[in-house]
């Protein structure tokens, strides 16, 4: 897994609550057997019109947000299906972190497994970041996972919290299967207590 240590990037505001994984990557693109090839289908139904042309109204298509790598969104981001294709699509598009007031559990887990940082902040703080993004073209944030801070270039400085273990795994880019396999003795001991 790619580590996540710190990242400075252009911010794009997606001012909607309950963005579900069907929107992030619609089902017709889930048939691939690879982990790659999903980025171009990210937010497909919102990003493209029925005739296949780019939807100029959709925020990701606006020129000022081209190249954005930090997505700011409303509460309950990533709800719905467990499809890991959602963070795969976001990552391939270039998103490294998502900031929201809350995340669906499975989606947040899937992010951590893919070197992507989900940052949970109070709704008022998310609102403040959205406003700054809209008011300042080229608005950037710097996320520092080690110190758990977010700063911008115009005076914003806030702290966020990620569990110690998830932070450690992200910072080191750890393969957590390898970590579990280190506890082979514990697994064997547990299995010995079970009949099946």
């Amino acid at each position, binding site marked *: 897994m790619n580590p996540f240590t710190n990242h400075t990037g252009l911010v794009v505001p997606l001012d909607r609550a309950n963005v*579900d994984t*069907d929107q992030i990557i619609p089902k017709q693109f*889930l048939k691939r057997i690879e982990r790659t090839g999903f980025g171009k289908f990210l937010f497909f139904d919102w990003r493209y019109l029925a005739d296949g042309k780019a939807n100029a109204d959709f925020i990701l298509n606006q020129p000022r947000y081209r190249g954005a790598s930090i997505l700011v969104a409303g509460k309950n981001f990533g709800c719905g299906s467990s499809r890991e294709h959602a963070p795969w699509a976001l990552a391939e598009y270039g998103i490294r972190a998502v900031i929201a007031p809350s995340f669906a559990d499975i989606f947040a887990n899937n992010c951590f497994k893919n070197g992507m940082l989900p940052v949970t902040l109070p709704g008022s703080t998310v609102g403040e970041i959205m406003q700054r993004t809209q008011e300042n073209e080229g608005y950037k944030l710097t996320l520092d996972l080690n110190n758990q801070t977010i700063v911008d270039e115009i005076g914003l400085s806030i702290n966020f919290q990620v569990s*110690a273990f998830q932070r450690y795994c992200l910072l080191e880019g750890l393969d957590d299967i390898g970590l*579990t396999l280190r506890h082979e003795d514990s697994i064997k001991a547990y299995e010995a207590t079970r009949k099946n």
Partner: protein
Amino acid sequence: MTLFEKLWQAHIVREAQNEPTLLYIDLHLIHEVTSPQAFDGLREAGRRVRRPDLTFGTADHNVPTTDRSLPIADAIAAKQIETLRNNCAEFGIQLFDINSPEQGIVHVIGPELGLTQPGMTIVCGDSHTSTHGAFGALAFGIGTSEVEHVLATQCLPQNKARTMKVQTSGRLPEGVTAKDLALAIIGKIGTDGATGYVIEYAGDAVRGLTMEGRMTLCNMSIEAGARAGMVAADETTFAYMQGRRFAPKGEAWDAALKYWKTLRSDDDAVFDKVVEIDASSLEPFVTWGTNPGMVVPVSSCVPDPSDAKTLADRQAAERALEYMALSPRTNIQDIAIDRAFIGSCTNARIEDLRAAARVVKGYHINSSVSALVVPGSYDVKKEAEREGLDRIFSEAGFEWREPGCSMCLGMNPDILEPGERCASTSNRNFEGRQGRGGRTHLVSPMMAAAAAIKGHFTDVRNWEFK
């Protein structure tokens, strides 16, 4: 202790400070869509499947529901199914393949085969794994990286969820089903009302549900954001399980039963949150918007966004109504439909089909509606055909299909056309879920059947059964 805490305790492989707990997984179900990348990961790292004997596969998400003797027209879908077949063969995993008599939706066949048992930890790369909690199991959906983790280690690092009790009182009235109870709960607490929690459903209304009803209820837990949903096992559970193919037999059954009977929340157990609901006051429910929390009783009307409590809620409601092409304050029963779908891991079990067939019997679907019945498994299909339900549906103008997820998520050719409005027994009414531009209203099987016949939503409590 709560039931959840008992199951958690019984599956701890390792605990350490500042680390998630390593939990043992008793049953791992896999399907074609979320497993191929996990097997690739195993191969790249040179790892094996630790417990192929605790792992079972089926193809359900993208399978066609039309004639299975024909080759699959979609080459990419065919390759995904072929990949599952090859992976299961390579790693020694039992597969209920597309033409096997046990094939079906993963959350329908697990219980049907007796694989799903009280007290187990059960995972699958699918959010509706919460279904299996109906048996007093701890069952939850995982992503593909976690599928790989379980394949390689039979364990998962997990942070302990908080506990929520949904305490029901009274009995569900005639014509009001487990689906309506689930929609009522989601309507009450919201689609993120249970995020971070495991729900235990308790009380008279839940005890009165059949296993099929309990599965419907637990299935929808994820739509409230819950990690899992569960119902403590009781005589209803044991009666359902006895004699099933993978259920314990003889002395093993007696021993299992003794253990299973201990799997209930203690009387003095403390939950982090309690939600109370009076089941006897509920009506059939119909969703009007683009998430399952946007739901109202059938006797009411589409809400007016200007009544919303917050600006964000108002904007979400306005956007939903625009997508759904509905006006505020429209009577629910004035909403006309184009399609009806009876199926999915929520509502495609035999009891669901019986309930829908009871409504359909002696009627024909409205001339402006096309309708589909997709049994949850071949076992369900066979039983329905034995009871003659297929004929009731076919004579009424419903298409009678082969088992799979079908139009619940539209990964196969069963999709809505842009602008089509569907009464659906599935679990998600997200934008485009059943097909780009499609408009989904979630309802119970009886309500979907009645809507198909009338051509618009109607209160099934007033139905004239023939």
